[in-house]
């Protein structure tokens, strides 16, 4: 039920998957929205605060998810998958994790470029780990944006592939992510 098996994902892995999916698309939308607000908009301060707070919490979730991934059995891909599909999906998953972490680190570096920490919902503060670096906010900002678009692009591709397995191949690839066993 909780843990993965050779054939199926456990509840923890499934919940983590959908939580991260929801948060990533939410943060992407919020990020696009907040960088376009006018100065007098009521959300001008609040939206970035929420974006940064959730982003930092997501980092902890991803670290836990990776740990969970490594200490658990990894369900085998469905037997109907071709060799290329197996290799491609494995690398897509790895790249998704890499993009997630890189995007969050880049975002962290924007806000901490001058030595300020990141306040997470007023609960605690994540300190700036690097000393202030001139112009880091600009470089980190551009990287964060490119990575976020790449991540969302790849996630969409990942979703389309899952739908293709469900609709065209009629295998269990997609349904495995809904029903823990």
């Amino acid at each position: 039920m909780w843990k993965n098996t050779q054939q199926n994902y456990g509840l923890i892995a499934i919940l983590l998957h959908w939580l991260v999916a929801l948060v990533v698309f939410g943060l992407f939308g919020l990020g696009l929205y907040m960088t376009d607000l006018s100065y007098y908009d009521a959300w001008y301060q609040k939206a970035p605060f929420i974006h940064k707070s959730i982003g930092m919490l997501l980092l902890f979730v991803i670290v836990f998810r990776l740990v969970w991934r490594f200490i658990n059995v990894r369900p085998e891909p469905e037997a109907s998958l071709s060799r290329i599909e197996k290799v491609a999906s494995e690398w897509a998953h790895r790249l998704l994790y890499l993009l997630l972490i890189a995007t969050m680190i880049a975002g962290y570096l924007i806000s901490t470029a001058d030595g300020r920490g990141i306040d997470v919902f007023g609960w605690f503060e994540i300190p700036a780990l690097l000393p202030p670096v001139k112009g880091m906010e600009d470089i980190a900002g551009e990287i964060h944006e490119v990575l976020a678009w790449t991540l969302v692009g790849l996630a969409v591709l990942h979703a389309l592939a899952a739908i293709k397995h469900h609709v065209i191949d009629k295998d269990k690839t997609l349904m495995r992510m809904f029903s823990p066993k």
Partner: protein
Amino acid sequence: MKKSIVGAVLGVMLTGAASVHAADFVMDTKNAHSFIQFKMSHLGFSWVLGRFNKFDGEFSYDEANPAAAKVSVNIDPSSVDTNHAERDKHVRSEDFLYVDKFPDAKFVSKKVVPEGDGKAKIIGDLTLRGVTKEVVLDAKHIAGGNDPWGGYREGFEGTTTFKLKDFGIPKSLGPAAEEIQLYMTVEGIRK
């Protein structure tokens, strides 16, 4: 041989004599005895202070004939510093200074109108965000003289105020923050 020595001595004397009159100065930015700062209202409640960390400039000045003075400053707008990286990033963006497209800013004097007591109006062209407009700098000669390290310096300060809109800055920060005040104080070392 003798002639050339005499010539050299004369030359030195003449240069020395000339220095009492118009001389050219380089702004001391290397050791940061020149500053370009700005001040803007935040919502009408308080002031945001900032400065440009990178610039260089020159001026010529003759205390006896201030009307002949000239000044020019080149500012790197990407060096804006308001003590907050995220705000500076925003100021450098297209919303404000758009430094990627307009990497140069400058002020070049056109005319100096002395007002006595070391004060003068310096009328010149300010280029910011690709727009060049005339502004008037209220300037004041503070003092000048030999420094302790063998150089000769003259110091000034000046202020000017302009609207962000005048330089095509598209972002509105509200009715209380349409204008920006620029303050500069420079110390020039005689060339």
